[in-house]
């Protein structure tokens, strides 16, 4: 079985939520990237929220995946927010010289949802109210976990 299938790509309203909770080898990284992009295309999602709270390390390979996802999502008119980077991971990233270009990072899922809600606020869409409700629920359950 493809290991990356173990990483869920959840559609919540018009946002793809990707909680990374396993240690990924390179093949999983590549296949996760492909899945996120194909889900973006399939669903027309406007945002990607990647939760890396459980990632113990970001090396240049994973860092590049995050930058590439953000760049490709942008071309598809979607915004990418990475949440939950551990301080040790952030320090190491900077020392390694990785910039995560184009990736917005926030402290936790709550902040990420707030950011993506702002992004969606301007849209005249009947699903909007439902979406914000769902996202808030998701944030609450996530923060409890």
């Amino acid at each position, binding site marked *: 079985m493809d290991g990356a299938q173990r990483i869920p790509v959840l559609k919540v309203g018009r946002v793809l939520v990707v909680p990374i909770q396993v*240690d*990924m*080898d*390179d*093949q999983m990284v590549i296949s996760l990237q492909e899945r996120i992009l194909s889900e973006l295309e399939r669903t027309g999602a406007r945002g990607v929220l990647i939760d890396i709270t459980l990632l*113990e*390390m*970001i*090396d*240049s*390979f994973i*860092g*590049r995946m995050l930058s590439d996802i953000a760049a490709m999502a942008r071309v598809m008119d979607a915004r990418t927010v990475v949440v939950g980077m*551990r*301080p*040790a*991971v952030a*320090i*190491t990233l900077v*020392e*390694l*010289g*990785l910039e995560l270009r184009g990736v917005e990072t926030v402290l936790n899922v709550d902040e990420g949802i707030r950011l993506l809600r702002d992004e969606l606020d301007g849209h005249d869409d009947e699903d909007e109210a439902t979406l914000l409700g769902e996202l808030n629920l998701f944030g609450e359950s996530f923060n409890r976990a």
Partner: protein
Amino acid sequence: MESRSIALEHEPDIVVARNEVRRLARALGFSPTDQTRLATVASELARNVVKYAGHGRLIAQPITDSDGRTGLRLIFEDTGPGIYDLAAAMRDGFSTGGGLGKGLPGSRRLVHEFQIESSPERGTRVSVVRWT
């Protein structure tokens, strides 16, 4: 604590290497940030072995200096084709493999000691040390 040798032949070995290095670093009393630095270095340099040489190994050696300070030495060795232009490979942004060119210069910034030898005859050997 004893040295550990880890075969580096396939992509999943990169994950094994970084997890084993983190485990050792934790057992040696390195701070969480240092554990992350060492795991990241292991991931970068193990990937170089798997990607450019195809096979090699990582030797992880707990060490102590004359003042009794604990350290961890990581040796990555392979018998691959060697690095053609070592000086260029140590510069940020230089890559022959389509990567970001952060592996070697970035790893050097994460450790206290960094040595690299490479030749077409003998392959490549990278030795790094971080002290607690």
